[in-house]
């Protein structure tokens, strides 16, 4: 009698196990979601809080408190453009400051924040998306150029030549020798070289931006930046003017190239 009860209990138990297993079903194959799901999730993510311990140990955190971090709309633009360009760089490369009439981007190969966006105050409402796209893309493209070993080597060699020539010219000036003309000429040449190299790297970066954003978007962004600028035809040392950049990106040279391609077809 006792054994019969035990058997019936065991049968009931295995029956229950089977029914529960059937209720939940077998392990399912992977269920991929659409990319829209990611976009939705991304819109919900918000900013990431840094780990507490690091925040406490960071020595500059006290005076940095209150300084603006990278705002959400620039953060979003940065990741979108990095995705379009298929490059992956951390957001920490980017730094924003707000004291300019005309938005610009500065890139350096040294330091923690290599891409520095200088934006007008209340940029979120005053700056258009094409302008921001071009600025961020230009920053990334120039950063790629700056990281290029050949660019770095040329800059390094020029810096050494400049230093030696400066030393030589000081010595010759002190000694009052006429030969001082040569080191001064070398200094002027190297400065000219730096100017040319800076301009070339910016044109190369613009070509890269066109590849990433497309010519139409790049043109719109550059035109919007030029509209803001009081003197779009004035370039800086080592930097072409906005007008020159627009001419290169949207101007006649492009049409000639396209015509040539059409003739080949």
């Amino acid at each position, binding site marked *: 009698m006792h054994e019969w009860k035990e058997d019936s209990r065991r049968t009931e138990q295995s029956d*229950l196990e089977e029914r529960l*297993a059937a209720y939940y079903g077998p392990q*399912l194959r992977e269920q*991929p979601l659409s990319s829209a799901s990611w976009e939705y999730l991304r819109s919900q993510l918000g*900013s990431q809080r840094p780990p507490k311990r690091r925040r406490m140990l960071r020595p500059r955190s006290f005076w940095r408190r209150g300084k603006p971090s990278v705002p959400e709309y620039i953060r979003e633009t940065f990741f979108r453009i990095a995705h379009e360009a298929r490059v992956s760089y951390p957001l920490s490369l980017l730094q924003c400051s707000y004291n300019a009439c005309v938005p610009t981007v500065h890139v350096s190969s040294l330091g923690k924040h290599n891409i520095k966006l200088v934006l007008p105050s209340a940029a979120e409402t005053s700056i258009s998306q094409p302008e921001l796209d071009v600025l961020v893309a230009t920053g990334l493209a120039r950063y790629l150029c700056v990281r290029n070993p050949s660019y770095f080597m040329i800059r390094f060699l020029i810096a050494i030549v400049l230093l030696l020539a400066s030393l030589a010219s000081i010595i010759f000036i002190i000694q009052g020798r006429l030969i001082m003309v040569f080191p001064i000429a070398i200094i002027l040449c190297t400065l000219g070289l730096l100017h040319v190299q800076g301009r070339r790297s910016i044109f190369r970066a613009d070509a890269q931006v066109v590849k990433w954003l497309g010519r139409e978007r790049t043109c719109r962004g550059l035109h919007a930046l030029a509209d803001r600028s009081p003197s779009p035809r004035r370039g800086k040392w080592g930097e072409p003017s906005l007008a020159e950049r627009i001419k290169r990106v949207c101007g006649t040279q492009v049409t000639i190239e396209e015509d040539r391609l059409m003739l080949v077809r």
Partner: protein
Amino acid sequence: MVTCEDDLIENAKHGDQEAFRHLWEAHHAIAMAAALRLCHHPGLSEEITQGAFLLAWCGLAGFKRGRPFRPWLMRILYRHALDVIEKQQTFLRPISLDELSELERQAVLNPGVGIDGDLQEQVVQREELRQALAQLNPDQRRVIALRYGADLTEADIAQVLDWHVGTVKSRLNRARERLRVLLTSERG
């Protein structure tokens, strides 16, 4: 050993959404399948999966470098799924034929494990079990869901729910006993 996933996690910890997107791409489909198996509702399982990733994003700061990401994510997912199921009381909704046929379709795609027999009979049996599960207390439902809906061992369940293994064992036994009584009385 530092892997590519570790780098992605480190970057995501510092706010890199692109790195987090790579993690999402690598793990969301598995997470979604696990959530769907637990709740049987595609819409709700997507909500659970997205919620779990949001929780993971917020909790990344506490993630220890070098540990595998998926078990950590799945623990979050299971805990979140059970919370959502209890909150929305999905066990009170009758199982529709559509949901069952979807499960059957899934089973066909997984050879070796199938749902045999008449579909109507299965619906009746599942309805009985659903009603019995609805009468359990929330802790018993949680432990049953993780044991049979996620195939977790008692030790794993203890980790997910933050209980002692002994507690898991006793709650699991009590839940089974109660289910047996409920199902027998229904048939009787």
